[in-house]
């Protein structure tokens, strides 16, 4: 799916990165813990989160997320939107909750970045 299609599926508002919506996405990582995004997100994946601070954009830039999808209808502060624009990372906001968002994307063929964490350093891949 492209980011544009993901946005359409979730009735999302595009807040930044209009020119980068035709990128194909295969994986996603849902978290409100940015430490876990840094540890487990894969390059090219979409970050799904309930956080709205500018750090989410910096994290996305570090781990090479293809987009950030904010859930629960939250609209981030202007600073976050401006940073996403500057770093050219699409920023979307959907009214669906994290569970619904993840479920709808999974049902459409998007999968997690990893399958499960068995223990320290023991990540079960897809």
């Amino acid at each position: 799916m492209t980011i544009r299609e993901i946005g359409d599926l979730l009735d999302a508002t595009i807040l930044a990165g209009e020119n980068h919506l035709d990128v194909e996405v295969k994986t996603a990582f849902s978290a409100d813990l940015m430490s876990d995004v840094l540890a487990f997100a894969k390059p090219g994946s979409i970050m799904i989160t309930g956080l709205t601070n500018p750090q989410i954009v910096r994290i996305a830039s570090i781990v090479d997320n293809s987009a950030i999808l904010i859930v629960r209808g939250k609209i981030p502060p202007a600073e976050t939107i401006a940073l996403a624009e500057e770093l050219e990372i699409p920023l979307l906001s959907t009214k669906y909750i994290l569970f619904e968002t993840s479920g709808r994307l999974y049902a459409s063929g998007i999968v997690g970045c990893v399958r499960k964490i068995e223990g320290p350093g023991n990540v079960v891949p897809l």
Partner: protein
Amino acid sequence: MSREYEFSFPVVGENFDDAGKASVEIKRLLKELGITGDILRRTAIATYESEVNIISYAWYGTINIRVTDDNILVNILDSGPGITDIEQAMVQGYSTANDRIREMGFGAGMGLFNIKNCSDGFEILSEPNKGTLIKILIKR
């Protein structure tokens, strides 16, 4: 011809608003030096975690990066309370983070573990009430 590049970024404790700024800049500079893919990503993740650690726990610190033909060497030196029990601090999930850190989406007890996980070489030295030095090596 062998070339070496060195740059250094100051990080101020409790400056939560700017968390990650130095690491985004470090990643941009490394990219300019031709470092890409997994190596670039691992280095950037390690510096980000280190930057958040300084902001969260130390008074101030510096991230030093040295890029040689073969390696990327990152030294993170801070002045701060230090780590009394390094072995415990390395355990995944162990954290002494306060609410401010957690609100930002950090303090999950993943930091040091993740830094080590991203590195080909990792060393940590700490002295209580003085500070902490983390030395990371990433092979190019």
